[in-house]
């Protein structure tokens, strides 16, 4: 392609970065999903096999904290990618590559907010409900 021709390498690097940011959109909800599945699965097996529910609850609460930290990290990276403080652009509806880049950051950031709420909600039963009954 004639005009603003980036070299093959540049192209590849940029593409890889965008692939990463497309993936980053789903990263926070993915952490939520993993957290959810682990909590559900472990509690189900624990109750069925009569393992020590108290220990499992404690372990899962620590795991929840880790999940929250992970989502926080994803959210922070996404916030930086969105870069609204500098651009002042809340809408990201332009047609340039930067707009798309910022947009993906924005979406990923919002999804990490939702995922934080999701993980906190799912951890509540671990705190409030004692046994398997």
């Amino acid at each position, binding site marked *: 392609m004639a005009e603003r021709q980036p070299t093959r390498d540049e192209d590849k690097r940029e593409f890889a970065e965008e692939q990463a940011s497309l993936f980053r959109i789903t990263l926070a909800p993915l952490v939520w999903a993993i957290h959810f599945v682990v909590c559900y699965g472990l509690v189900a097996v624990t109750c069925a096999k009569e393992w020590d529910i108290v220990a499992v609850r404690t372990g899962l609460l620590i795991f929840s904290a880790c999940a929250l930290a992970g989502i926080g990290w994803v959210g922070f990276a996404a916030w930086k990618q969105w870069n609204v403080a500098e651009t002042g652009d*809340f809408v990201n509806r332009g047609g340039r590559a930067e707009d798309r880049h910022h947009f993906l950051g924005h979406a990923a950031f919002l999804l990490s907010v939702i995922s934080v709420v999701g993980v906190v*909600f799912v951890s*509540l*039963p671990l705190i*409030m*409900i*004692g*046994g398997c*009954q």
Partner: protein
Amino acid sequence: MAVKNFGQGTRCRPSRRHIGTLVSLLSVAGCGLHQSALNPAGRDATSISTLFWVMLAGAVVLWLLVNGAFFYMSRVRPGQFDQRYARHILIGGGIVLPVVVLTTLLVWGLSILPDPRRPGDGLVVRITGEQWWWRVEYWPEGAEDPILSANELRLPAGERTEIRLTSARVIHSFWVPALGGKMDMFPGRETMISLAPEKPGSYRGQCAEFCGASHAWMAFSAVVMDPGAFDTWLAAEAADATPPQDEAAVRGADLFLSEGCGACHTIRGTDAAGLVGPDLTHVGSRQTIGAGRLPATLDDIRLWLDHTEALKPEVKMPTYDLSPTELDDLAQYLEGLK
């Protein structure tokens, strides 16, 4: 028995807790609602109905706000608003408000979630779901053998009773709305729910999981009694049948055996010892016949015997070809099994 008379309300009073036109109207209309979750007579049902009324009030307010805003925006003032408001409404209405409301509700919900499975105070009742009736066993604390009954559940007021549930063939669900939530009954598995009834009275329970042709007719009465009365009743229930001695009833008793009813039904103290169908030892003392299908009056028992299939489609019990007098005799006998 003080609480006979299925089909008549025993409690007809407006709810004191919730004042308001709509609510009191519903409560008055609710008079005679034996199967209503909004007329609670047990601890769990009460806490759930309180939760419901609060959520309903909140829901009405939120619904009016959101739809009012839509109406205002599209009909009353279709012009442009300041962008600032739009952002506030998105963040405030979309994130902040729901997070606050939902967290509150979730904490409330979780705090009462384990209640219906709290251990009981001693008495255990085992109920097996059959197509389409209920096999009931009472296990007083320390009992070695159960007291067998069917299609009626009696509970002492003021105590928490553990109900252990299972099923013979398909999935059913045990539910007495006035006393608490429901719990499914599975073949090959035991589930548990405990009920803490408070107000003596007669309530209706019904199977809540679709279980085949006559799912609609799988009901029972749940009778809550003062603890003393309950103990007396349980002792009577444990005893063998005391067959009525009048002439027709005696003919009916013979008919019961000669027609082969005993192959399926048990009447303790007689030769009838079948286990396929409900135990009929004290069927005359129950409020209903056919698992809540009809009141257990003489006429209705006769009707049941004469039109079983029509009253309860695909039921296993055949409709017997009996003469009118034979029907009378048999009904007389069953009704007399107090």
